């Protein structure tokens, strides 16, 4: 019989490396947490303070003014608010059905062998910087839109009044389409995540009752994942609302209310990024004010999205891909 010699334990508290006492350790963590909280508060407060002169000299009415002409003291934000909402609307109207259909296909239809490859690819595409999508949109897609897509839409759907006017290339429609391509991976990846957590027993139970595959999806899987899908949708919306460069590159940047989808337009982020360099005084403050409006919309949309994704109990689904 061999005896195993137990290693002599080092005396507690006399390790080679110094270690913080528990109170100090907890204190250090709490301090970092406070630093982060303070940063977030500082962020909100400083943008508000810098935007304040615009509100005090122009009142609150400037937010809904229709004309942006700083040299005449006109700072109407409405064209940009509308541009932001319209481009986002185009993007989510396209991304919702196509993203959801893609997520369903990825989660249930694609052969299980290719499934992980395709899913990983989608998640990787969510990480491609938005400026790359903008570059592609401006140089590759804009000429196609000018020469083919917009003339076609004008002749086919011109009676709706949505596609009137000259064919620009860079336009509200192109911005919406680029945003759609950009938010699609986010939408697909999160929807797929919430679709596959629907319990297998429920799916098999429904199949055993004689439901077709589509009926199982319609009546069991989609209702079960409804809140999570809504959360994915809202997160993607938030991303589209806040996107700056990809939109600024393809929307044409004209400070007027767009009269058709073929018109060039501008959004709040594109307004800020295009005018920031040359602005001073009230105009700069108005840009900060525009930023504040955008920030508040962003906080609202993201709070709603987080709350929805959280309440499906699939915490953190959006973290890795939720750019």
């Amino acid at each position: 019989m061999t005896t195993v010699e137990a290693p002599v334990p080092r005396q507690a508290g006399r390790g080679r490396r110094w270690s913080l006492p528990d109170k100090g350790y907890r204190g250090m963590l709490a301090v970092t947490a406070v630093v982060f909280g303070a940063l977030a508060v500082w962020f909100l407060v400083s943008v508000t303070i810098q935007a304040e002169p615009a509100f005090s000299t122009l009142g609150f009415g400037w937010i809904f003014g229709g004309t942006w002409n700083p040299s005449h003291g006109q700072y109407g934000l409405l064209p940009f608010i509308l541009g932001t909402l319209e481009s986002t609307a185009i993007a989510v109207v396209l991304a919702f059905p196509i993203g959801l259909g893609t997520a369903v296909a990825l989660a249930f239809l694609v052969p299980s062998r290719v499934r992980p490859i395709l899913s990983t690819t989608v998640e990787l595409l969510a990480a491609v910087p938005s400026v790359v999508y903008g570059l592609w949109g401006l140089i590759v897609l804009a000429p196609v839109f000018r020469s083919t897509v917009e003339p076609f839409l004008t002749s086919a759907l011109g009676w709706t009044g949505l596609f009137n006017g000259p064919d620009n290339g860079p336009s509200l429609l192109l911005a919406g389409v680029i945003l759609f391509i950009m938010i699609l991976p986010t939408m697909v990846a999160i929807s797929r995540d919430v679709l596959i957590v629907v319990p297998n027993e429920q799916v098999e139970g429904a199949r055993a009752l004689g439901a077709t595959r589509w009926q199982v999806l319609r009546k069991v899987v989609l209702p079960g994942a409804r809140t999570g899908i809504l959360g994915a949708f809202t997160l993607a919306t938030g991303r589209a609302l806040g996107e700056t460069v990809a939109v600024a590159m393809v929307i044409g940047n004209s400070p007027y209310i767009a009269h058709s989808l073929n018109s060039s337009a501008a959004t709040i982020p594109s307004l800020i990024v295009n005018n920031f360099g040359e602005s001073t005084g009230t105009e700069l403050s108005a840009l900060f004010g525009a930023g504040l409006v955008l920030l508040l919309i962003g906080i609202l949309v993201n709070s709603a999205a987080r709350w929805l994704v959280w309440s499906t109990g699939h915490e953190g689904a959006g973290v890795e891909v939720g750019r």
Partner: protein
Amino acid sequence: MTALLESPADPSVERRRAVREAAASTLRRRKLGSQVALGVCWLFLAIAVVPLIAVVYYVILKGLPAWSVDFFTHSTTPEGVPGGGAWNAIVGTVVITVIGTAVAVPVGLLCGLFLAESQGRAASTLRFTADVMTGIPSITVGIFGYIAIVRNYHYSGLAGSFAVGFIMLPVIIRAGETAFRGVPRSLNEAAMALGARRATIARKVVVPTALPGVITGVLLAVARGLGETAPLLLTIFGNQYLEWNPTKPMAALPTLIYSYSGQPYADLVQIAWGAALLLVVVVLVLSIGSRLLAAYLRKEHR
């Protein structure tokens, strides 16, 4: 002998038969409907894949010819002057991202530890704040960087690092928390039973065990920080010349792509494509690498 069960008087058997007949009579229609609906899903998958592949295809097609020796060794030249590369922008992006990461990672991971180890209102408020901050419009962070740093200091790489770090911070916090929470309770309790202090447990048990998740989260945050454009447009000003000093105005790859994309000069647009390819390659390498590394570390750990 089963007369009792088949007796027409039994309502449940009647009902069962009615249901079976209804199911049989609608089977063809339901099957067709199912096929059509699933076909639409396939179609949507195809619609989704085409533009995404097209983006990657064009970035490679147009970016690769831009990758010359000059691209990686020369700085940008003024408009109209041929030649030049993106070396100053590469250096700028590396310096800005490294500084931003160096600050955001320790703060973010400590906050993640705090969230993983505490309950209560303060922790959930902080968690919610971090979650909301991962999605706020990045241009507003640029405004913050301008107000906080540029106004009091000047346009500089550091102001860009501040903005990029601020964007990475909530991502690192949540990824860190998720990783730290995944450490089994039993490991924690065993270490406590040995009389270890909490700081020792964190250093020797929690952090090493959670390392795969932490690394994945940090690399994904870096990948995100690398591509951020809007915050840099308001903070770093840009620079035609090579600049290693982060207290000076700097160039960066995303802002270079943004400003060169609309130029009428073909060679500048080509440099923009080259920069786009470089960004995409680095971001993909980081994303794929983080997955592989995490998988490898998990295997090692067992």
